[in-house]
C-alpha cells in the first residue's frame, strides 16, 4: 500500500468535497426554510461563474471587486426568483414547485448561451498557483484554496444561521411556520432571505468551481452531484450537507483512483442507495421530510 498516494487521493477528495458541501449548503438553506427542492442550484452556480467572467473579462473589473459583486448579483437573482417564480407557487403541490425550478434551470442555461455563447470558457487565473505540499503529499493549489474559501463561507453561513436575527427567524420558520408567523416573524421575508442567501452562496461557489474547471452552459450538471450530497446528508441539515459533501468527495476520489474513473458515479450512487435504505431521510435529515 502506497500511503502517500492514499493520502494525496484523500486530500484531493476532501478538497472537491468541500465544494460539494458549499453548494449543498445553498441547497439546504432553501429547502430548510421553504421546503422547495431547488433543482436549478447547478444553473445558479453557473450564473455565478458567468457573472464573474463578465465583470472581469467584459467590464474589466479587478478580481477582488468582481467577487463581492458576483455574490451580490447572486443575492439579487435569489430575491428576484423567489418573488416572481416561487412566491406565486405558494400552496401549490411540491411537484409543481419542483418543476418550476427545473424550468428555471433551463431558462438560466438559455440566457447564458444567448449572452455569452455556447463555447466553454476559462476564468482569469486568480487563485495562487504555487503547489502546496502537506508533508510530502501534493495538493492541487486551486482545490486547496477553493476548499479553504468554501470552509470559510460554510462557517460564515453556520454562524449567521445560529446568531443573526435573520438566521434565528429562518430556523424558527423551518421548525414551525405557523408558530413563527404568530410570533411576529415575517415568513415571506424569511423565504426571500433564504433564497437570497442560498443564491449568493451558490454564485460564490460558481466562481470557485469555474476557476477550477472552467465555465460552460452545461456546468449546471455539477448540481446533480450536489443533489446526491444533500440526499445523503439529509435535505434539511447543514451538518448533513457538510458531511455528505466531504463523504461523496472522498468516495469519488477513492473509487476513481483505485477502481477507475468509470466507477466514480457507480460508487456515489451505490452509496446513495445504501444510505436511503438505512436512513431514508439522510444521515442527519429530519424524520418528517415529505418525500416526492
Amino acid at each position, binding site marked *: 500500500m502506497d500511503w502517500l498516494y492514499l493520502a494525496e487521493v484523500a486530500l484531493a477528495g476532501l*478538497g472537491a468535497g468541500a465544494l460539494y458541501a458549499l453548494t449543498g449548503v445553498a441547497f439546504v438553506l432553501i429547502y430548510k426554510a421553504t421546503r422547495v427542492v431547488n433543482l436549478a442550484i447547478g444553473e445558479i452556480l453557473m450564473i455565478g461563474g458567468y457573472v464573474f467572467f463578465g465583470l472581469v473579462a467584459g467590464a474589466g473589473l479587478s478580481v477582488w471587486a468582481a467577487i463581492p459583486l458576483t455574490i451580490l448579483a447572486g443575492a439579487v437573482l435569489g430575491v428576484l426568483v423567489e418573488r416572481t417564480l416561487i412566491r406565486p407557487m405558494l400552496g401549490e403541490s411540491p411537484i409543481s414547485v419542483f418543476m418550476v425550478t427545473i424550468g428555471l434551470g433551463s431558462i438560466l442555461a438559455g440566457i447564458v448561451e444567448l449572452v455569452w455563447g*455556447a463555447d466553454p470558457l476559462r476564468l482569469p487565473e486568480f487563485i495562487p498557483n504555487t503547489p502546496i505540499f502537506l508533508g510530502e503529499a501534493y495538493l492541487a493549489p486551486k*482545490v486547496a484554496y477553493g476548499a479553504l474559501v468554501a470552509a470559510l463561507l460554510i462557517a460564515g453561513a453556520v454562524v449567521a444561521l445560529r446568531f443573526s436575527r435573520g438566521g434565528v427567524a429562518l430556523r424558527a420558520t423551518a421548525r414551525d411556520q405557523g408558530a413563527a408567523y404568530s410570533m411576529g416573524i415575517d415568513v415571506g421575508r424569511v423565504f426571500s432571505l433564504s433564497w437570497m442567501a442560498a443564491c449568493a452562496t451558490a454564485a460564490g461557489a460558481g466562481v470557485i468551481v469555474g476557476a*477550477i474547471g*472552467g465555465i460552460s452552459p452545461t456546468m449546471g450538471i455539477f448540481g446533480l452531484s450536489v443533489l446526491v450530497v444533500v440526499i445523503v446528508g439529509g435535505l434539511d441539515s447543514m451538518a448533513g450537507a457538510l458531511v455528505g459533501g466531504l463523504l461523496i468527495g472522498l468516495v*469519488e476520489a477513492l473509487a476513481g483512483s483505485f477502481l477507475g*474513473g468509470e466507477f466514480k458515479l457507480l460508487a456515489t450512487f451505490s452509496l446513495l442507495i445504501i444510505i436511503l435504505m438505512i436512513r431514508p431521510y439522510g444521515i442527519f435529515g429530519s424524520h418528517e421530510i415529505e418525500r416526492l
Partner: protein
Amino acid sequence: MKLTLSRRSLIGVAMAGLVLGAVEARAQNEEIVLGGSIPLTGVFAFAGVGIHAGIQDYLKIVNDAGGIKGRPVRYVAEDTGYKVDASVAAFNKITSQNKVSLYYGDSTGFAKTINPELERKGTMIMAGASFASELNDPKRYPLQFLPGPDYTEMFGILMRYIAKEKPGASVAFVYSDTEFGRDPIAPSEKLATELGLKVAEKIVTPPGSVDVSTEVLKLRRARPDFTIFHGYVLAPIPEFIQQAKQMGMQSRFMGTFWSMDNSMVQQMGEVADGFMGVMPYRYYYDKEGTSPMLDKIRQMRPEYQSTAYMQGFLTAMLMTEAVKRTLDAGKELTGPNMKASLNTIENFDTGGIIGVPVSIPGNSVPVGRIYRFDAKQKQMLPASDWIQLGK
C-alpha cells in the same frame, strides 16, 4: 413509301418536343439540396455554428460559379440542440419537404440511428460531425463518410509521430467516459504495442467532471512520456496539464480534432504552450504555399474561423464533388451512385484545406498532421509533415 404528316400530328410532335425540352431544362436547373441536422444550440453549439458557416460559404462559392453543372445547391438546416431525437425530427422534416441528395448529421448517435432509413431511401449520402471509428465501415454504413480520419486513425497518426520521435516511449490515454471518449481506446492500445510503444496508464473521467486532482495523481504515478487526451473540448484538459506540470511531470500533452481549435487552445492560458495534437485540416491563418480555398475563406471572412468551420467547408466540398462526378458520368443522383463517385476521389486537391492531395478509398480521409501550440505567436504551428495512413 410516301410519308404523310397531318397538321394535327405535326402540332402534337411539336408540343411533345416542347414538353420534353422543358423537362430536360428543368432537370438541368433543378436544385440540389444539402440538408443538415446542425447543433446550433446545446453542448456542441461551439462547433455547430462554425460548421453551419463553413457549409454555407462553400455552397456560396459553388453557386456563384454557376452551381454544379448549372444546378444550384440549396442548404436547408435545422437546429437540433445536439439531441438525437431532434436530429431525427429535423431529418424527417427536411427530407419530406425537399428532394435531398446530401445530408449533414450532428452526432454519432444520429448517424447510427438514421442509417437504416438512409439505406432504405437510397437517395442521399451523409457525413457529419462524428469521426466515430464505427462509422468507418463501408459495409455497415454504405452511404456515409467521414470528412477526415476516424478517432482511431487520429490516435494512429499521433502514435506514429510518437514512435518516430521517441521509439519505445510510454503513453497514457486520458479519456471521457462517453461513447466519444471510449471510441479509439481498445484498438489504439493494440496499435501502440505494434508500434513498440508502452501504454503506461488509461485514465477515464466521468462526463462533466470538474475536479481532476485524483486523476492527475494517477497520471503522475504512471510517468508517461506522452499523454493523449480524447473525448474533451476544453475542460478538464487545462487543469490536468497545469497540475501535472506543478508536480514536475515532463510528459508531453496531446489532443484529437475537437480539442484542437486555435481559439480553444488559446483559452488554456500559459499551459497551452507546447500542447500538441492531430489536425486533418489547415488552420485559418496558415499561409504556407498556395491555398486558393484558404485565401477565399480569408477574403469572405476576415476574422479567424474555427476548425469546425473548416470541417463543414470540406464536407460540403467533398459532397458536391461526389455530385459533380456522378452527373459527369451521366448517372442518376442516387445514394449508391454518389458514394461510388465519392470513392473515385483520388489525389484530389482540396485547394489547401488539407495540405496534401487526398483520396477516399473507404469511408474516411485518413490523413492528418501534428500541430504544436506556440505561446509567443499564440498559434498552433505544424510540428510534423502530413501523415497519411496506409501509405
